[in-house]
């Protein structure tokens, strides 16, 4: 059996209508490591991560073929519920999207409550643990039920969304440009957080910021026009990439 949080992608193709967005992606993402996905706009990097937790199919006229395996879970297997997949694979987006009218507490507990969780004492514990993991606890512990998610700063909102994703105890955390709308201090907090999270979770981060990829990820995958061009250890990718196209992209010699 594969290790918890290991992601194996085989011959993955994805379409928007008749437009193919991903071509035969084969990739193995190591558990409890951070993998960065880089590439120019429109290269398919967001589509790739959205295929991992079956978010791609939520858009109209989309299609996926191939295999995504997370440990023993065949993500596109017959009878596999997308809801179940998304419990195993949390996602954080570029723009923080807390439930605006809910309190901080309810934002974190929402996923569990939705799943029928009602033990108050247990919920308290999970909310605290999740907020601590998201490095937000100290800042909000005194106003958990008084303040709404929307009252927090942008950086805090993003960490709240991370706490919300962690509350359901996923194996994998997908992050699509999680810090691109944040100031450098909030960005640094998120990056430190990613470093801590990978002790427990498999983290896959889409980023336009190559320095960020270099700082947080042990492995980096470079996508171009829907193809996976190169996948290797991050330090190798950024000092001595094997493929000329990777070299051209990361040194800004494109186009």
């Amino acid at each position: 059996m594969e290790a918890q949080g290991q992601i194996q992608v085989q011959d993955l193709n994805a379409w928007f209508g008749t437009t193919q967005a991903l071509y035969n992606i084969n990739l193995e993402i190591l558990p409890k490591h951070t993998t960065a996905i880089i590439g120019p706009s429109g290269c398919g990097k967001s589509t790739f991560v959205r295929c991992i937790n079956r978010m791609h199919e939520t858009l109209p006229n989309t299609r996926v073929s191939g295999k995504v395996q997370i440990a023993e879970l065949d993500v596109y297997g017959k009878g596999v519920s997308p809801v179940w997949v998304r419990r195993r694979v949390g996602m954080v987006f570029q723009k923080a999207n807390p439930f605006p009218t809910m309190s901080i507490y309810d934002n974190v507990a929402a996923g569990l409550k939705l799943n029928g969780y009602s033990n108050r004492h247990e919920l308290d514990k999970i909310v605290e643990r999740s907020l601590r993991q998201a490095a937000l606890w100290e800042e909000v512990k005194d106003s958990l039920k008084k303040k709404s998610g929307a009252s927090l700063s942008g950086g805090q909102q993003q960490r709240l969304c991370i706490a919300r994703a962690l509350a359901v105890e996923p194996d994998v955390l997908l992050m699509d440009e999680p810090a691109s709308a944040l100031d450098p201090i909030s960005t640094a907090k998120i990056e430190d957080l990613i470093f801590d999270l990978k002790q427990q979770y498999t983290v896959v981060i889409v980023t336009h910021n190559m320095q960020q990829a270099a700082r947080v990820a042990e492995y980096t995958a470079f996508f171009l026009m829907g193809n996976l061009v190169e996948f290797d250890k991050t330090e190798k990718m950024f000092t001595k990439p094997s493929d000329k196209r990777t070299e051209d992209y990361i040194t800004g010699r494109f186009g």
Partner: protein
Amino acid sequence: MTRTRFHQGLDELKQKLLTMGGMAEQAVERAVRAYQTGDVAVCQLVLRDEGKINAVEREVDELAVDLLAMQQPMAVDLRFIIACIKINADLERVGDQAVNIAERVMDLANQPKSTVNADIARMASLAINMVREALNAFLTADADIAQTVLEKDDLVDNMNREIFDAADYAMTHSIETHRHALDTLLVARNLERVADHATNIAEDVIFWVRGADVRHHAQG
């Protein structure tokens, strides 16, 4: 092509370093010519220009640091800038060796000649050629040329050892001319160092172009 300003900066760095290389190479050539002709006036030129080399060294370093800080270079560009910083230091040291040789030549002018059997001219020609070829490899981003520089270092090292023995013999057999022999020995020593710096430069070119570390016979 994107990042135009960055690539202009890289070109400027290369040009400055080649200027630095030309100055260091000229300094050694002058010092060796002074040794061969005994022309102390040429030694003064070497001493005078050392400050200019040091000034360009600072300019190269400043530009390299600016590029690292402002442009966050990656991959081949990162290797290039790191190589430039190291080559810069080696070229400055080549300039220092030229000054050392010039100082020996000025001392030699006042000493009775010894019979030390040293082919300084050939050794100098080899060492200067190594610097020139290392700079040529840098100019053309040619790791093969750089490789040929590495292969010549042993030749210069061997000549240095031969001159050491010859100087030792001369000093033992003629006490009146021992200082001449000593100066000659030091000139050889400085030329051997010049060749070492050329070797370092060649290794840095290989690192830049191939991403391989070939120092100390490491497998790249």
